[in-house]
Every structure is written in C-alpha cells, then in structure tokens.
C-alpha cells in the first residue's frame, strides 16, 4: 500500500468517524425490547423481539422453540395407540381435540370406521374441549387488556366442562381416550343430563362476558381497528380458525372438511366477522362458544345406540400408506400427516398445528403497532405455546 492511498484512506475514515459522531448526536436510536421468553403477556415461552421507536413497533420477530418437545420424532418410536398420549399435550387446553385428527388419519390408513355412537361421542368431547379452550381465551383477553376479573370467571366455569370431560375419560387435561376404531369407553349414566346443565352455565358465562367485557366502553375502544388482517393476507400466511373467520372468510372444516365427525348431523352456523381486527377475532370466538353449546346440545339429544368400538385387532399394525387428516380444532386447523410402512409404529408423523401458522403473521401485523396494542393483538391471535412448539 502506498503512502498516498494510505493517507487517503485515513482521511476517509476520519471523515466517516466525524460524520458518524454528528449523526449520533442528532438521530435517536431505536430500542429493542425483549418480550419474553419469560413475560406475563406470552402465557408460555414465546419470545417476541420488538424494535421500538418510542412506543411504536418498527419490527417484531417472534422467536419460538423454547418449548420444543420433539413430538414428531417421539411419535416415530411409539405404537399408534401410544401416540395419543403425546399429542394430548400439544394444545393443552383443548387436549381431546388433538387426538381426533391423528386417530382419524390412522383409521383412514387402516380403513376402519368408528361406529356412529363413537363418532357422536367423539364430536361431543371435541366440542367440549373447544369450549374448555376458548372460554379461557375469553377471560385471558380481558387480562391482556388489563381487566383482572374475567379470567377468574373463565377458570370457574371451565371447571364444569373439565368435570364433564373427566367423568367420561378419567382425565381432566390429558384424556387419552380416543382409540383407533372408536373410543375407550362409553359415556357414564346420567352424563347427558349433567352436560346439558353445564351447557346452561357456559351460556350464562357467555352472557357475563358480553356484559363485563364486550359491553365495556374501554374494551370497545381498545381492540377495535388494531391488528387488522385482510382476508387475502391472512390466507397467504396460513391463518385458520377464528383468526381467519374474523377476517370474513367463511371457512370451517367442521362444515367443509367432511371428516368422520358428526358435525354434519346437526344444525349450526359458521360465524364470521368482516372487520378482521382484534375485536372481530374475539367476537367470533365468543359466538363459537355459544355455537358449540348448541352443537353439543343437539348431539346429546340423539346419540345413536350401539357399540363404541369397531372391530380392530388387539395389536394394531397399520398398513403401509400415507394419510393426511385435518380438523377444525379450537385454535384452528390441525392436521396430521401420517406415513406408515406397515409397522407397529408410524414411519413419520408431521403435525400441522394451528398456532404455528397463526403466529407467523406477527411480524406483518405488529409492524407499526404500539406497545399496548402488541399485547392485545397477540392475545387476539390466541396461540398456545405447546401448539406452536410441539
């Protein structure tokens, strides 16, 4: 390097440095805020790295994987009936619903079909776990917006639903009740009447939520108009469940999916909301709890008689093949892609969980939001960490 070029280079560096110092004095620097992995708002171990300008979000990156438990890999060393024990823990609030798509996929591979009675009871439990899941969201939405009381009501009334699930399955959170070809047991005596009573309580809870949360002026002012997701953007990011129905897309696999559940036997409605903001997602979920009550009530009235278990061999060997079944779970679409090589254990299980896709929109939807809205938008997207990380 010659002397001249060296001097030029030094001059250049000096100019840059002085320029930089001037810039430092006049420009404000953004702040990086780390929401999580330990944070009250993320109800789990989600980490959102938020770059802030004042209180406005410039960029938000969700970081997941702090709770990864490797269920897809673990499923490869479990026999088919053992897998339900694992997948119970994916969406831990609506755990029975996790078992259903896996069992349906396995049934499709084995070409067995559950008897009608099993299908109906399956659907009832499926919808009960939806209620148990979503009413906690309704309470939690209040907490994220700063009202402490609704969540206690939610926990109180969820207990009744859990009791009903426990009465049938023996497990409050992890029923592990679904079997290939049917169910483990029949429902106990007097259960239908009790459940009808519980549905009355849930309806009362929904009315309370309307009064306490939805009817509240501040609640009306907070989530409206923030976190707006247009339908096409939502679809592009793979949103599902109430998140996409809140954007006005009339898509519900319970109606459109045609899988082996009894939803098509009863009269119900898919709720949508045209706005696509946080409030509409909350509102759709509230209506869906009511709708689920209606579905269960109608199903309870006409459970067909018969066995709850089809004829399946004692040792389950699934024929070689592939099957993908998805159902409309409490959090959105949940699908299992099961590949079998004709063995006792699945060769590969790919789990498509709803929250993983739902959370993928956060960088898009949080950009330009304010810190208080970050929390309410995240809350309205409603994810369960187990469902994200699996």
């Amino acid at each position: 390097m010659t002397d001249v070029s060296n001097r030029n280079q030094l001059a250049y560096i000096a100019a840059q440095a002085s320029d930089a110092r001037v810039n430092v004095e006049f420009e404000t620097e953004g702040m990086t805020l780390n929401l999580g992995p330990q944070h009250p708002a993320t109800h789990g171990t989600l980490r959102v790295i938020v770059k802030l300008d004042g209180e406005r979000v410039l960029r938000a990156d969700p970081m997941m994987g702090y709770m990864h438990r490797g269920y897809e890999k673990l499923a490869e060393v479990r026999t088919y009936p053992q897998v339900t024990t694992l997948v119970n823990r994916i969406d831990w609030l609506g755990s029975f619903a996790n078992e259903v798509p896996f069992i349906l996929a396995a049934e499709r591979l084995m070409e067995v079909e559950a008897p009608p009675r099993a299908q109906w009871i399956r659907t009832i439990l499926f919808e009960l776990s939806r209620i148990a899941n979503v009413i906690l969201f309704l309470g939690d939405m209040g907490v994220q917006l700063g009202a402490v009381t609704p969540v206690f009501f939610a926990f109180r009334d969820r207990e009744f639903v859990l009791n009903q699930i426990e009465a049938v399955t023996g497990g409050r959170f992890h029923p592990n009740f679904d079997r290939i070809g049917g169910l483990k047991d029949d429902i106990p005596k007097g259960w239908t009447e009790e459940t009808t009573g519980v549905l009355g309580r849930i309806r009362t809870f929904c009315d309370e939520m309307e009064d306490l949360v939805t009817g509240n002026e501040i609640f009306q002012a907070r989530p409206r108009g923030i976190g707006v997701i247009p339908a096409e953007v939502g679809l592009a990011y793979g949103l599902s469940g109430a998140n996409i129905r809140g954007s006005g897309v009339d898509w519900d696999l319970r109606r459109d999916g045609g899988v082996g559940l009894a939803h098509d036997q009863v009269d119900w409605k898919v709720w949508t909301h045209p706005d696509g903001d946080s409030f509409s997602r909350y509102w759709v979920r509230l209506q869906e709890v009511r709708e689920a009550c209606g579905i269960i009530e109608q199903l309870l009235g006409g459970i067909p008689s018969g066995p709850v278990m089809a004829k399946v061999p004692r040792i389950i060997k699934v024929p070689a093949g592939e099957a993908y079944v998805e159902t409309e779970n409490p959090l959105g679409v949940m699908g299992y892609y099961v590949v079998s090589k004709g063995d006792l254990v699945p060769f590969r299980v790919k789990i498509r969980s709803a929250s993983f896709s739902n959370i993928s929109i956060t960088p898009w939807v949080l950009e330009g939001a304010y810190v208080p809205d970050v929390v309410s938008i995240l809350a309205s997207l409603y994810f369960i960490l187990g469902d994200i990380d699996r």
Partner: protein
Amino acid sequence: MSSTILAIELAYWQQTGLRALLGLVGVLLPAGILVYLFLFKMMSFMQSRLGPMEAGPYGSLQLLAEVGKFFQKEDLIPAAADRVVFKMAPFVVLISTFLLVLVIPAGPDLWFIDIDTGIFLALAVSSISVIGILMAGWASASKYSLIGGLRAAGQLVAYELPLVLAVMGVVIQAGTLNVQGIVMAQASGEIFGWGGIGNPFILTQFVGFAIFLIAVQAELTQPPFDMPVAESELVTGYLTEYSGLRFLMFFIGEFATAGIFSALAATMFLGGWYVPGLDPTDNLFNVIGPLVLIGKMVLVAFLIFWFRFTYPRFREDQLQQLAWKFLIPLSLVNIVATGILKVVF
C-alpha cells in the same frame, strides 16, 4: 393537632412526637384498611373467590403475614442500576404520601397543620410522587421500567390538571382553600334554607366529584389508568426491578395515597368528619370524627376499587385524549357554572 387537645397541655417535643406517630397511623391505617377490605376481600368476592381465610378471623391477619414476607425478601438492586437514585425513589414516593396526609382534618381540633392554602398544598405535594416514579423508572436500568416511568410521568402530569380544576369548584363554593373551612362550610351550609344535613358539596359539585375520582384513579395509576404498570405488557412498569422492602414502600405508597385521596374527596364532597344533626363545634367530633372520616373514606374508596377490578385499561393515547379533550373542558365548564351560580344565589 392543635397545641391543646382535649385541654391537655403538651410540650413541643411531645407534640412533635405525637404528630409523627399519628402521621404514621394516618398513612398505614388507610393502606391497611383498603388492602384488606378491597384488594383482599372485595376483589375476591367479585371474582367468586373467598380471598385470604386462614390467617386470623376471615384472613384479617393476612396483612401482617404479607408484610412479614416482604421483610424477609432480599433487597435486590440490578447491577446496572443507578444505586443512589434507585434506593431513594421509594422514599420520595412515600414522602409525598406523608405530606398529603397532613392537610386532612379528622375533627374540629384534630389536624396536623391548619393553613389557609390547605387544598393547594395537598395538590402540590401529591405531584412529588411523579418524581419518585420517574426516578424509579430511570434508575432501574430496565427497559420495562423506563417505559413505565415515562408513561407514568406523562399520565400524572396530564391528570394533575383536571384534579386541580375539579377542586376549584369546591373552593369557589366554600370560598376558602382551607380544608377545615371547607368542612365547616358544608356543615353549616343550607339547601334552599333547609339546614338539616348541612350542604355536602357532592349535591352541587357532582361533576367535580366525578372528575376528581377519575383523576385520582389516574394519579394512583390504577386500572383503568394503569398503563405505567401494565402488567401484561411491561411486567410491572417502574416497579419491575424492586423487591422486598422497597417494593413494599411503593405498595404502601399506592394504597395509602388511594386512602388519603379518598379521605380528601370525602372531606371536600361528603362533609368530611361531620355527621348531620350535631353541632360542628361539638367536642364529640374529636372522638367520632376520625371514625366518620374513615367510614366516608371507605365509601369513596369503594368506588375507586370497584372500577379498578372491573375495567380493562386505556391505551396511552386514549388516556391522554380523555384528560385533554374531555375532562379538562368539562371541569372548566363546571368552574364557570359554579361561579355563575355562586353569584346568583
């Protein structure tokens, strides 16, 4: 406390000691009452729980247990914190509370200081807590604390104005800034010539009362105005890094200030220590006055805590809009109306 109480002559040091002691009682008693009655019990009943039941009858000794717990905790200071400021902040907040309690009379002869600008002093010293909160937010060296502290500063400054303006109506009607004078004006007032219950200013200043309560709620950073401590976003805002005794100080400061502001509202709008049917100069009030005041304070605090446990929180911009676009114009209208009516009647 006047120099003679119930005709007992006291030396200066005795008076001072007594005052300091009563000041401590005046801060801790409302805090204790409010925490037990509302935070423990009312909140639990609203949320279909029982609240503390084990420690003492109906959990009444739970408070002692909680305080004991805070005493045992380690006094953690973040490594990057500004240690001096960090340690001072809770004291600054508490000082504001202690100064605030001075102006409230609990009987015709029961007061700490009786100055002609009593209300003015109360509103002035209540703002000191902002400095403490800012200090806490800055010194914690935590981003949550910093955002919380700045939010608190913005909010408290915004709501200082409606607080002052709401009081103006009372001052105009009573014709004095002296707190004792305001109580007397209510006690000796008449409603269209009928002096049966005196004239509690809430009857004429109901708008002022509402604005005062809203502004107090905001000053206390309680829901729906708890943006500075928004636990779902900022963990607990400026309190995030505090533990043990220093957290307890903030806690006592918050609840004692809630109680004292309630007592102030009771004094200005509900007649203070006075109950109708008795002569306000009666010596009896030196005995029952504090009890009456506490009763009225609990009534007002009930409203504050009812909102606290029911409402979600405002967003920062909505909160500022409420103050600047709604409360301040409304309180100005209230002042004008009060002035006109004062001249007319």
